[in-house]
């Protein structure tokens, strides 16, 4: 039981990966590998990006028009595809952030009650 819980802690909640990607790209354009690393490091390695779902998420966001992409050369001098936040993406980010905050607050309220 305990080990299972611990494993689950690092998984990213369904649907939040999109939000994390959008938030990461506020800092500037980045390619997939960087995005994963930034998320993991910023969360002090509490979150682990499952790499298999990162790329489907990126493509989904691009299809929705929230990201744009172009091929470029990375810091390692390698070919890489860089993603950039579009205006639509910025709007979605602020909306999604608000939704997230409302939800965590609501969950926090419930959990707080339970703790008392």
């Amino acid at each position, binding site marked *: 039981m305990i080990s299972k819980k611990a494993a689950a802690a690092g998984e990213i909640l369904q649907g939040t990966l999109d939000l994390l990607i959008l938030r990461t790209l506020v800092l500037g354009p980045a390619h997939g590998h960087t995005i994963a690393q930034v998320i993991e490091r910023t969360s002090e390695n509490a979150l682990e990006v499952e*790499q298999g779902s990162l790329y489907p998420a990126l493509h989904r966001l691009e299809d929705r*028009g929230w990201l744009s992409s172009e091929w470029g050369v990375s810091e390692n001098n390698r070919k890489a595809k860089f993603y950039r936040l579009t205006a639509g993406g910025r709007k979605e980010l602020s909306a999604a952030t608000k939704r997230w905050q409302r939800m965590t607050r609501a969950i926090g309220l419930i959990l707080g009650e339970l703790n008392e």
Partner: protein
Amino acid sequence: MSLRRYVHRARKDQDLAAEIESHLAHEQDANAARGLPAEEARRQARLRFGNPRTVREHVWRYRSLLWIEGSWRDLRFALRSLARTPQFAWIAVLVIAVGIGVNTAVFSVINAVLLKPLTYPDPRSLVELRNTSPQGAFPGANIPKFNVWHQQTGIFQQVAAYDFGGAGLNLTGGDHPEQVQGIHVTADYFAMFGAPVIAGRTFTSAEDSPHGGNVVVLSYGLWKSRFGGNSKIVGSTIQLDGQPYLVVGVIGSSFVTATPADLWVPFQFDLNSQDMANYFTVVARIKQGVTVSQANAQLILAADQYRRTYGGEAIPPQGGFSVVSLQEATIGDTRFPLLILLGAVGFVLLIACANVANLLLARASARKHEFSTRAALGAGRGQIIRQLLIESLVLSMSGGLLGLGLGYVGVRLLLNINLGNIPRLGANGASVSLDLNVLLFTLGISLLTGILFGLVPAIGASHPNLVATLNESGSRSGISFSTGKLRSLLVVSEMALALILVIGAALLVRTFYKLQAVDPGFDTHNVLTMAMSVSGDRFQRTAPVAQILRGGTERIRAIPGVLDAAASNSLPLDGGLGMTFDILGRSKGDRPFTGGAGFSSISWRYFSAFQIPLVRGRNFTEDDDASAPGVVIINEAMAKQYWPEGDPLRDRIQIGANAGPAFAELPRQIVGIVGDTHDGGLNRDPFPIMYIPIPQMPDAETALNSRVAPLWWIVRSKVDPHTLVTPISEVLRVASGGLPVAHVRTMDEIEVRAISRQRFNMLFLTIFGVAGLLMAAIGVYGVMSYSVQQRTQELGIRLALGAQASNLRNMVIGQGMALTLIGVAIGIGGAFWLTRLLASFLFEVRVWDPLTFVGTPLLLSAVALMAIWIPAKRATRVDPMRALRLE
């Protein structure tokens, strides 16, 4: 939802593959930076990422429209699977093609006749004016009626009159005079029907008034054929009946009406006329916003006004006026027969569907293993149903496409043979065309049939008992009980539907032969008829017409091969006039001593030319002329109806007492009684007719007659009458001072035309009946041979246990005939119920005609027996050893 995700999928996938490579390279770099050896760095990067293919598939699937992809895959699969069984596919497609073909054929006729709007501007607002009476509503108008209707400006925007050009006009001048179809119209006629004027103009209202001058508008056809399409013709004069007429305009070729014309001349109505004979038709354009029922309400008042102005005799008691939409008026009584035909082809299509459903059921049970395997591999029920439905739709759409072609070609062929006097079909059915309506109809029924015959086996196949089917050792262990029942049910319904169709067809065939067997009351054989138009000024009086009669008759009878010659103003079976009469000396209005009868003006040799027997009294002679006392001959029907007692030969009658000044008849003595003729059609009882000698007609009556009807010449010959056309025309030209003849027909041709509608109905219904019968036979054959094939093993065991081959054959026949007979029983019941719809088409054949109701089921059973015989025979040839070894 954005559509972006569905496009450029392959390119995007390549992009993703490159992106994943790039990611792995970066991860490898990071691992190498942590000090791992190159190989290990690479391995760990791949390990962490997982399978790149899974990611790519994930994105690929997200970018696809699953349903369409699946259907496309199913479609390819269906085509492959049908291609594996080409025999099945062809039979199914052909059966559907026949079913859809007959429907397309009938619908294309219905589309042309009933559905397409008339080709006039704003056709919905056009109405025909009718006289109503307790017997029904009939077209026909005279000047007083036209006058009253024309004044109804509250409901009508425009009112126009036209006749049918029955008398014809002689286009004279030049070397060869020609009889042309000239129609009288009022000035508004062209505007109302939107006639395109390609040169000049149409009539002014001044030209359409009495003494408006001789003016004419030419049709495109006459302008081209007679005047070489010369546009200078407008403003010049042509000769009609020897009078100069000013050509004021030419109408374009696109102008097609129900009353085709070579040229038009103005009516020039004298609105003070009291002439009560109805000899033209009136059409009006209803004002915008006025409904037909409002117009009819207003016309009740108009009828009152008419009665006040022209007297109570001018309109029958309880009579009045009404309008009916011009489209309805044009369609006439053809709607019901066409709908009956549509119902019949609906039956054919149902039989075709049942047939294909049966084939598909057989196929589905042969494919049980395939479906069970697919279900075991995880195919959902919906997926299997979809697969089967797509297969049946492939069949139905191919069949529909083929049927569209078959139906179109078929209907053209049939209409070339016989138009059945159906209006709006054009020359040889030219207006029956493949338009959007027909295409949509065919597409619609193709889809519908595909779903109809596909769904039954699809649902049956979609919940297979996996374990049972997969455990079965082969596909030969027999047809499951429920599928077998379903297939039997389909065969029974096919038989029932086919029987109803064939009974309907048989009733019409019997009717047709009864009609052909009717003695028309006159001899039609070797009798030639031709029309001479006596419409000119010369023939406004009786004497010149009588003179032509005498001269013409003499000269024709002198031609070798001619047996007899006569003339009349109407032909039997070709329509005619009716008049009222009173028997003198009886109290007026006291039935049955006053009434109506057919009115036929004839020359003295008419009865001998037609070989109509004289029953009593005497025939007309050449001496019954204007100077002799008035005489009349009546037929037996008239004698029977109006002289139930007493002797008609002692009475005198007064014809057309209330019919206006044109019929200033003097009393006539009845001098003879002749045999009845079926003048009103072979399917009608002979009605009363009175015959008067043309030389005794009052001048005004001749003048009117000459306007509305030609003089028909009737020649009986020893030889083929067609060989006599030229010499007869020649002597008539001499006798008449240059008049041409036209509309040359034999009485045999007229008789054929008189029953062409019945022939049309019979022809179509027989074709459908035969198609249904054959399909039903194929159906019962298919079911029985499949059943024999499925039961090879059982039959083999029976044989091994000592059953005789004949026992097995009789068993199969018994089962097949049981299905047939159940179908026949249901079909007889259905036919009892449905044939009453055919009542109005039948003649001397009862709706429950015993011969048909006994003979047709026997015929159907015999055909079914032949179809069953083949598989039954096969059952006896089962080799017991082979059958047992099949296990």
